[in-house]
Each structure stands twice: as structure tokens, then as C-alpha cells.
């Protein structure tokens, strides 16, 4: 008898699992995600979500408007432009690795590569470009990488995010994994990404105002006064983990790329606003 119950339970569990896998529906998630934020913050114009904490706090916004007259990311932007235009030793440039010579394409990243079945972020693509041209890979977290992505984001400002999830099981799996990572609690403080950026945007954590997850990737890379410098998407994800006293993964780990894929898809239609400046 007991064995029969056990077997039925196992069958039911297996059925439940396939049902979960079958219900990966990015479009439905997208609608629910956006509706959650627009309902919770009815006064915030949709395109303003990309401005993170400034869309939530009027005082902070005033300071930002003043700062943005002479933005602190200016040096990185100038450096990025110079790096982008400087040929590698073999005479090729970054532009040769990208569609439209790398200008105005930030909104298409990350994308699903059908050949290799992996998620390619802009930062990964830049280092692969360097390696394909016989150059050493850059650090993923700051300085040169942030300068390059700052310039590429700047040339794409205002372009709406256009992330595609093809109906390829590998792409859907990556999306689902990113979503799972985003909503999973971890670290000593037992926080998920969503604890701060879905549950509590606009609220204070110490002196910081938490940014909404909707559009949070649009402003990257950012100059953070707290960091005293620029940081990439990789850096943002790493510090999110360490701030919850979790152990961060390696930059551009598959999980991080999947989270970026998930978050960028959720931001579809919102304009690129990077490089950004944050407290």
C-alpha cells in the first residue's frame, strides 16, 4: 500500500516538474512584471524607471540634475571613446566585432547565441573581441571595461531595449535560470535580488534609495560615488551579492549572464540611459 502511494507520488511529482518546465512564458512574466511596477508607482512615467532611485525620490533627483550638468562619468566616457577608436595591434578595431561598427547597439545585449547556446552580454562580447584579435582580456568590473561600455551605451542612449528570447529550449532555460537566480534568497542576510529591487524600491537602506528592478540595467555602467569610480554590470551584480553577505560568483558567470538576460528582457521597450551616475 505504502509503496503504491509512494509510486503515485513520484509520478505526480514528475508530472508537476514537466508542467513547471512547460510554463516558462517570458511574455506573461514581462506583462506581470511591468504591471507590478506601474501599479505600485502610478506617478512615475514608464521611461523614468531607468533613472533608478531618482524616479523614486524628488530630493535625490534635484541633486542628480545638478550633478548631470557635469557628469562624473565624463572622464570614463572620453577614455572609452578613445579606446574604441584605437586599433588593436593587428589593425582591427572593436567596431569590427559588432554590428553597425558597435555604434547604437547596446539595447540588443545580452542576446542568445544560437550557435553556442549561451547568453552573450556586451562585456563578454568585448573581451571575446579582444581575444579574437590577440589582445588580453580586460577586468570585467571597472576601469577600461566600464569606459568601453560607457561609450557604447552613450551612443545608444534613448534606444529601447530589444531583447529577444527565441523559442529555443536553451534560451528559455537560460531565461528561467536567470529568473530563478533573481528571486532566490542567499547570503547571510537571506536576501534575494528581488527583496530589495522588487519588494522595496524607493525605500531606504542606510542612506541609499533602492532602485526598482524595472529598467535597472538601462543605466549601466554607472559612476557610483560610493565606489569613487565606474562600475560595470558585472560589478553591480557582484556587489549585490556581497552586500547581502553572500559569496559573489566570478564576473560573467553563467548565472550572472542569465540574470542580466532576464532583467534586460523585463526592461524591453525602456530606453538605454547609460552611462549613469548614482550616489
Amino acid at each position: 500500500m505504502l509503496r503504491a502511494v509512494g509510486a503515485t507520488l513520484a509520478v505526480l511529482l514528475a508530472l508537476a516538474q514537466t508542467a513547471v518546465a512547460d510554463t516558462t512564458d517570458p511574455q506573461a512574466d514581462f506583462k506581470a512584471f511591468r504591471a507590478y511596477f506601474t501599479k505600485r508607482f502610478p506617478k512615475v512615467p514608464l521611461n523614468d524607471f531607468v533613472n533608478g532611485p531618482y524616479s523614486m525620490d524628488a530630493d535625490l533627483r534635484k541633486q542628480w540634475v545638478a550633478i548631470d550638468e557635469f557628469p562624473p562619468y565624463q572622464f570614463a566616457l572620453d577614455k572609452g571613446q578613445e579606446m574604441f577608436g584605437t586599433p588593436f595591434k593587428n589593425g582591427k578595431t572593436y567596431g569590427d566585432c559588432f554590428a553597425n561598427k558597435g555604434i547604437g547597439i547596446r539595447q540588443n545585449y545580452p542576446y542568445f547565441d544560437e550557435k553556442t547556446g549561451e547568453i552573450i552580454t556586451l562585456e563578454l562580447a568585448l573581451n571575446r573581441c579582444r581575444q579574437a584579435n590577440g589582445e588580453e582580456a580586460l577586468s570585467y568590473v571597472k576601469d577600461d571595461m566600464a569606459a568601453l561600455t560607457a561609450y557604447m551605451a552613450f551612443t545608444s542612449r534613448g534606444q529601447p531595449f530589444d531583447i529577444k528570447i527565441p523559442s529555443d529550449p536553451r534560451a528559455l532555460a537560460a531565461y528561467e535560470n536567470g529568473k530563478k537566480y533573481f528571486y532566490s534568497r542567499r547570503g547571510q542576510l537571506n536576501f534575494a535580488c528581488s527583496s530589495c529591487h522588487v519588494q522595496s524600491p524607493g525605500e531606504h537602506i542606510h542612506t541609499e534609495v533602492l532602485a526598482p528592478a524595472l529598467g535597472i540595467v538601462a543605466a549601466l555602467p554607472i559612476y557610483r560615488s560610493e565606489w569613487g569610480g565606474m562600475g560595470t554590470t558585472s560589478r553591480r551584480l557582484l556587489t549585490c551579492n556581497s552586500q547581502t553577505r553572500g559569496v559573489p560568483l566570478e564576473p560573467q558567470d553563467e548565472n550572472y549572464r542569465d540574470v542580466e538576460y532576464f532583467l534586460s528582457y523585463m526592461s524591453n521597450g525602456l530606453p538605454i540611459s547609460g552611462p549613469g551616475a548614482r550616489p
Partner: protein
Amino acid sequence: MASTIRVRATNSGDTTEVQALVQHPMDSGYVKDASGNLIPPHHIDVVQFEHGGKTVFTALWGPAVAKDPYVKFSFKGAQKGDDLTVSWVDNKGQSDTLTTKIQ
């Protein structure tokens, strides 16, 4: 090497508003690096803005000013098209200078 100074000066009739950003580590001398050694002090001591041979603004910065400092002020007596010269000197004797046209 690109200049360490970014400056914008705009004249609106009577007054000229100046904003400048300087790229500098501004190490106070009290911070340690990853291996526990003190990072020696390295900061700007004096910043000056000159217009028509006269110093219109002097700032005595020091170890307490943050990295990549920003400054904003306004002064009277300049015209559009005039030259404005910015210069800084740090505690190691390094310096930079830049001349811009008032817009």
C-alpha cells in the same frame, strides 16, 4: 595624454558661471591599499582660475577633498569669447593647465 581638466564657462550678461571637473586621485595619505600599506598623500593643493591676467578664483584644496573634484562658481566682468585659464598644482609638484573660451 588627454587633459585632466574639463571646464565649461557660460556668460549670461552680467555674470559668468564656471563649472570644472578635475581628474585626480586626491589620496589623503590615511588610506591603506589592499596589502595594508599606506597610500602616500597625493592631492591637489591649489586650483586657480584666471581671466584677463587676473585671478578670479583660488581654491586651496587638500587631503580632505574627494577624488576627481568638482567646482562651481561665478564671477563678474567677463565677456563671451574671453579666455579663461584653469590650473592646478599638487603636493608632488605635478600640474596641469587648460584655457577655454567663455561661451
